[in-house]
């Protein structure tokens, strides 16, 4: 799983940072490093930008995985520099931002926008792969997710906008349902194209979602 991020425009971040003139910068060694939005190099560039703008950077660190328990330890290691800062600028996905916020009672500002959960299709190309909808249909759709791969998230087949196997919103993008049809045909499972799918359950796991994993059981929902 990779959390795909994009850098916020520097002007938008400037508004968020405003009067905070002493800043500690955190990057992430996992997803944000792969997407080149929060790795060692990007953190160094950010520090240079902030200093150019007249801010004081009290320190920085790139946490191996900003969304796990290491974040607490990494922040403790940088205790003095973090205490010197007025705010923390986090160059990771929203998971890392939230994890950071759990450990410190100071403003935590995201430097990135989190776009989607994706897989790396080829070097540098990340494709949205899962909406985490809680009702996986991949078994009936030849391993292609219609929730994410179809622009409208349709589960009962293609809309009328499909054109030469492409999507109506973008002539470069494949129509998910054309691909699903072709694969099901190869697998001899075209009957699935005619199977009516009832309206989706958008409350498979009501928000905020929470799962407790116990030792010898499947995960159970809720507290």
């Amino acid at each position, binding site marked *: 799983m990779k959390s795909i991020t994009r850098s916020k425009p520097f002007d938008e971040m400037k508004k968020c940072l405003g009067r905070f003139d002493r800043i500690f910068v955190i990057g992430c060694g996992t997803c944000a490093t792969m997407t080149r939005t929060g790795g060692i190099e990007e953190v160094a560039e950010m520090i240079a930008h902030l200093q150019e703008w007249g801010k004081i950077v009290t320190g920085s660190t790139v946490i191996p995985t900003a969304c796990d328990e290491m974040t607490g330890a990494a922040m403790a290691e940088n205790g003095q520099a973090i205490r010197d800062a007025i705010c923390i600028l986090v160059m990771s996905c929203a998971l890392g931002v939230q994890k950071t916020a759990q450990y410190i009672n100071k403003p935590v500002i995201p430097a990135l926008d989190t776009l989607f959960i994706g897989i790396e299709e080829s070097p540098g190309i990340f494709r949205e792969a899962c909406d985490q909808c809680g009702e996986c249909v991949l078994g009936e759709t030849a391993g292609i997710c219609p929730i994410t791969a179809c622009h409208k998230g349709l589960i009962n*087949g293609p809309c009328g906008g499909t054109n030469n196997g492409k999507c109506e919103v973008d002539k470069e993008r494949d129509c998910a*349902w054309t691909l699903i049809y072709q694969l099901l045909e190869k697998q001899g499972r075209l009957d699935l194209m*005619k199977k009516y799918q009832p309206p989706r359950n958008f409350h498979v796991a009501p928000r905020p979602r929470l799962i407790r994993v116990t030792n010898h059981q499947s995960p159970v929902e809720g507290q």
Partner: protein
Amino acid sequence: MTQSLREALDSGRFVITSEIGPPKGTNIARMLHHIDLLKDKVDALNVTDHQSSVMRFPSIGGCLAIKERGGEPILQMTCRDRNRLALQAELLLAYTRGIRNVLCLTGDAIPVGDHKQARGVFDLDSSQLLHTIRLMESGKDLGGNDLDGAVEFCAGAIVTPEAKPLEPQLARFEKKVEAGAEFFQTQAIYDLENFTRFMEFARQFRVKVLAGIILLVSARMARYMNDNVPGVLVPQNLIDELASAPKGEALSRGIEIAGRMIATLRKDAICDGVHVMAIGRE
């Protein structure tokens, strides 16, 4: 209008429908004018629902106007802008106001329209909306609750006979039939041989098919549709015919082409009727 759309479809005669595009704004004079021009010449009039994802006066508003003026409206409902509560509520409203025909569509994508940052809903799709209508006719809503007063609709859907590839669309067509569609209006068709082949497939099912006819007003428009409208293919010979029309007569040539197609569809009983879209040239 003395006959409902369902009665017209059941009568076995060649049915003609057309459509009304509501305005962007409160000036509805032109829409009312179009309704008055068409209502007695056709069996029923569709009213488009934020066509091409462009925000407009609502479909149900246009349908009520048709009803008030003695016409037979077909309420177009897309699943793009309303969730299942809002869709069901609108069906209740439509029924109480005498609207008896619904065309169920999934809806164009948000980014093709004029509110590109809006959220596309798609809580239901067209098949599920058809299913919902049949469920509500049985006196239940999608939540499994009893309705105090059910609905009854002549429900239809759309199909694109020129789609490429066609097979996934045909599977979808079957699913819509299963879900309860009793009539289909097609995306614009121009190649009658292709359409006849499609009809051989469609005739397996107990549904009525009205061929979509979009009036061609110029060779330029025909080329534009070929390049930009999914599932529409104007053959080269028709484009040439339009291009060869003397200056200022392309529109009448287009009307001639449409008339010729409709006459053939009717004479050879290829389908059950036509849905004519005059796109502002009423």
